[in-house]
């Protein structure tokens, strides 16, 4: 009986813990957090940004975490899967390193640096929506060991430079959507709300051609 009693005690503790965690997650979901805000685009001041909408966090070791920026996470809508090159693969700048999939279509993101893939975030592969909810913290996608950090960072944007660039990108995107909207939607409402604010997840509603154009104009510019 003692063995069963111990087993039952452990199982009860695990069940209670599961329920406590679930309740806590629910509570956390209601807490407003700037990083998760849907009204604003967030740019961490200490992160490097590439012009293909990926961010890089330079680590103590010289390696970098790479993910997609808040702009992509706001405009893309839902994400069904993320495909990543395997750990150990050598990557060249401009070659695709990961794909974000939405149904049958995908966005292929070029590598912002030359280097070797050291690690892949298993959490985003398991729950791809993490990159939408928390693009800069838990939403990192891969870790790369750049061949030459010094020369790589020169081509990246940081601080005010990055924020100026992102503002410009958002403007460019607004123009892009205004131009393309009539082609896939007879009325602008599904994409543009009052005051010209781009509706979150606007790309989810666009047709294949617009999607490809977006990929070409915003993601594959290197």
């Amino acid at each position, binding site marked *: 009986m003692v*063995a069963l009693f111990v087993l039952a005690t452990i199982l009860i503790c695990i069940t209670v813990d599961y329920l406590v965690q679930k309740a806590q997650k629910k509570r956390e979901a209601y807490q407003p957090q700037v990083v998760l805000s849907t009204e604003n685009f967030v740019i961490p001041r200490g992160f490097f940004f590439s012009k293909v909408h990926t961010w890089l966090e330079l680590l103590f070791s010289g390696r970098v975490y790479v993910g997609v920026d808040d702009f992509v996470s706001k405009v893309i809508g839902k994400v069904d899967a993320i495909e990543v090159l395997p750990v150990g693969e050598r990557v060249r700048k401009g070659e695709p390193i990961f794909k974000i999939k939405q149904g049958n279509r995908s966005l292929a993101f070029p590598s912002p640096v030359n280097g070797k893939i050291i690690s892949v975030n298993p959490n985003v592969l398991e729950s791809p929506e993490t990159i939408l909810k928390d693009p800069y913290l838990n939403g990192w996608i891969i870790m790369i060991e750049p061949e030459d950090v010094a020369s790589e960072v020169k081509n990246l944007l940081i601080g005010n430079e990055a924020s100026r660039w992102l503002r410009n990108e*958002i403007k460019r995107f607004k123009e892009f959507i205004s131009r393309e909207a009539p082609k896939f939607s007879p009325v602008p409402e599904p994409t543009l709300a009052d005051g010209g604010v781009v509706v979150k997840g606007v790309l989810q509603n666009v047709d294949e051609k617009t999607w490809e154009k977006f990929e070409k104009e915003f993601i594959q510019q290197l």
Partner: protein
Amino acid sequence: MKIKNLKLTFWGAVFWIIVVLGIYSTILRFTKGLGAATNLSDKFPWGLWIGFDVLCGVGLAAGGFVIAAAVYIFNLEEYKSILPSAILTAFLGYLLVIVALIYDLGKPWNIWHPIIMWNPESVMFEVAWCVMLYTTVLALEFSPMLFQKLRLEKPQKIIKSLTIPLVVAGVILSTLHQSSLGSLYLIVPEKLHPIWYSSNLPYLFFLSAVAVGPAMVTIESYLSSRAFRREIEIHILSRLAKVTAVALMVYFVLKVEDIVNYKLFPYIFSLRYESLMFWLEFAVGVIVPIALLTNSKIRKSKKGLFVAQLITVLGFILNRLNVSITGLESYTQAGYFPKWTEISVTLFIVALGFAAFRLIAKHLPVFPPEVEERKTITEGFEVISMREVFKEQI
């Protein structure tokens, strides 16, 4: 400076309740004796404290020597990042085993006797020396984390130069200790139920410890990744799970050999409490984990791996409790069930282990720095309002 959040969480409240009850039980145990604090008797002298706190505690601490052997003896460098946390778990596990022994010994003040009163023919003598020496080795293996924090470079260098001898000593002592806990039960062939009695007990104990070591490292990584909001090293842990699977397969073969050699079929196929407990233990601790961990999809999924390794740990606990308690019940007819004070002491010891791990992991460099430094990006960001950008009407 940050204002500390003093809000009591659910588990925080449970911890303090356990501590209060544990302190009461401790006072009762050391003022009124074992008779007042436990349901142990001359007929049944080893109960929950030995069965769970000591036998399971030692086995669950096996991750330390398994990972240390993998890194330094088999040169599998990729496991290095999880070594400090495995060493810490093992060190705390052994310290708590000693605490549990102090509770269980009738005369705890004589715990040091094996140091000078040698009885090399006794298995208990071997166990006592293994605990003493291995705890010392673990303390030395753990010390670099402390020296690093205190920026003491000289002692850190000395310990570093001793790493290989320490790891070799740790692996030898653990192997001796894990197996000698099984040997302990070789001296009670007439008392232990035939299902569990076997001359293979030392090997079975050792193998199950090798299997459960990586399982405990996985669970510890999972829980600490949640507590400290760090990434779990799934690629390392999923490879480590193969060690568990292989060790359990060897265990399976040895156990089947026992069933055949000792002609246990009538015992295991009877509708008795012991046979049901055996099947539960065998299914939960061996068959289900092998089936789950040999599936690469489960090994690569965070939740799948956690559940599979949790089942391994539960099966291991069942095995140790079956050997130490279930297997002795029918012979002794003592009808032992622990008193609430015994249970509260066990919970107290486990809770202290969790609290100590949390405290040490928070203040010492237990986890790899790349993961640690990501905590700093909670501030220093700029927000561009969408309305500011799109203020003009289309």
